[in-house]
């Protein structure tokens, strides 16, 4: 699986309260959640995000609450992939479980800039910054995790007999 998209860049410790503020947790509708995604850290996000865009961020992305609404909101916004220096562990599980592609790559997350076009090949683990030409290597997920993500999450994969 390959993702190519425009980069939207954030810093360290982007928490789930800013990804989807708790005042909107009275719903679990993905479209409604997406309409408030990143609202408390970046009011311009919902207006400028395009389908296929990639988030690049610093350490501990998704820290805080266990709300699965956070990766759901990001995915429903059209984000195809999140590249971070590191992920908070509950967000990491949740992203895989709901089928949001993620990859840990400290070097890429540091060097990639807002607006760069980046291509990530999940099978080989190679991330290429098309804007600067620089390549980064990461450890690809085992095949079954890739299948879960590609099939739209754990439950969908189980229902489809994909895993």
């Amino acid at each position, binding site marked *: 699986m390959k993702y190519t998209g425009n980069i939207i860049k954030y810093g360290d*410790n982007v*928490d789930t*309260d*800013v990804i989807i*503020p*708790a*005042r909107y*947790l*009275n*719903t*679990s509708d993905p479209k409604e959640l997406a309409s408030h995604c990143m609202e*408390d*850290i970046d009011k311009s996000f919902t207006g400028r995000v395009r389908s296929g865009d990639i988030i690049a961020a610093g*350490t*501990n992305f998704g*820290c*805080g*609450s*266990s*709300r*699965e*609404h956070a990766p*759901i909101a990001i995915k429903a916004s059209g984000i195809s992939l999140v590249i971070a220096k*590191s992920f*908070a*562990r*509950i967000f990491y*599980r*949740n992203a895989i*479980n*709901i089928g949001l592609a993620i990859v840990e790559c400290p070097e890429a997350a540091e060097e990639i800039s807002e607006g760069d076009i980046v291509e990530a090949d999940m099978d080989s683990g190679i991330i290429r910054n098309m804007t600067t030409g620089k390549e980064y290597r990461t450890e690809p997920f085992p095949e079954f995790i890739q299948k879960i993500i590609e099939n739209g*999450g*754990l*439950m*969908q994969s*189980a*229902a489809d007999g994909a895993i």
Partner: protein
Amino acid sequence: MGMTMTQKILAAHAGLDRVQAGQLILVSLDLVLGNDITSPVAIKEFARLGKDSVFDRDKVTMIMDHFAPNKDIKAAEQCRVCRDFCRSMDITHFYDVGQMGIEHALIPEKGLVTAGNAVIGADSHTCTYGALGSFSTGVGSTDMAFGMASGKAWFKVPSAIKVVLRGSLRKHVSGKDVILTLIGMTGVDGALYRSLEFTGEGLGSLSMDDRLCIANMAIEAGAKNGIFEVDDITLEYLRSHGAAEPVIYRADEDAVYDRTIELDLSEIEPTVAFPHLPENARTFDKIGDIPIDQVVIGSCTNGRLSDLKAAAEILRGRKCAPGVRVIIIPATQQIYLEAMELGYIRDFIEAGAAVSTPTCGPCLGGHMGILADGERAVTTTNRNFVGRMGHTGSEVYLASPATAAASALTGRITSPWEVME
């Protein structure tokens, strides 16, 4: 190579003699928990599996605490989804308004977790029950759904950081000051993917309420779980709350830790975490004059009886500062009742504080004390992220119940040592 406490519990629940850090294992669960925000998503996912029952109706629990008593129509609909599901699945431990408390205070109180258990909850502060010597960790709604269906969850076996405690706490210093000090040392991702294992002769001086508070905020250091070595205090707590027979797992002598942190409890001072991360811990020599608008005493971190006692001892016979809104939320009905019988509720109301039925409410900016732009609150809750308690321009300062109560009296962030000299 020896195993940590966490690794031993995980091995036992995976049917293995031993495990090592990094190994992927499938674990049998003793309890699966959800609340009114995370359960509706889990129920939707559960429905996809087409199962007509949960794995064990005594081992799944749902607690309506976040936006309950319902704050609006959508919250009411979400609670109804949970209520209908629990009725149709004949769930034994469903707690609704009137019986409910904040989940992480209620579950230990009801004796639903014992030492040696493996527990998941679709709430990040599920790590609280590590105080009881269990492996307990927060997950998302999909993991909860899979757990409800199968009684299992997969884990990567964590490595650990050992926290060795010695000495004992000074007056008006509590578990909250300990964990804020520790997070100040590790940072919010210093224990990422790891266990925090608490041990040492200092344990004996920490009450169960202090331990529950400390384990509760392990997630704020990024940890997978926080766990306390079981001692007589743990066993007495479990016995008096009707918990199942404990199984005690001790770390091997040759267990390997990524890092060891030593904390002398007698050196810990009242500590406050400044906006907007719990790692921004400061003692009062570095705080200065910071006026406040609101105080919240409650939450899964600090809404227990000893927390209310600490606040009552400071507020008794005094008045909250003019212009400061003080909101006190006992974490469970039982705590509320005991606080009433002990006279704490009278102390609070006479001091000018509002007292509420149990709810997570303001902690996550849900209801019962939302902040306006530019307002500051001293709270005993667990997170001070941007917008956590309301407007993105508001500020949350995390502190102990004693510090919060002292601040309520003066209208600025105040050490309990200052008002209780």
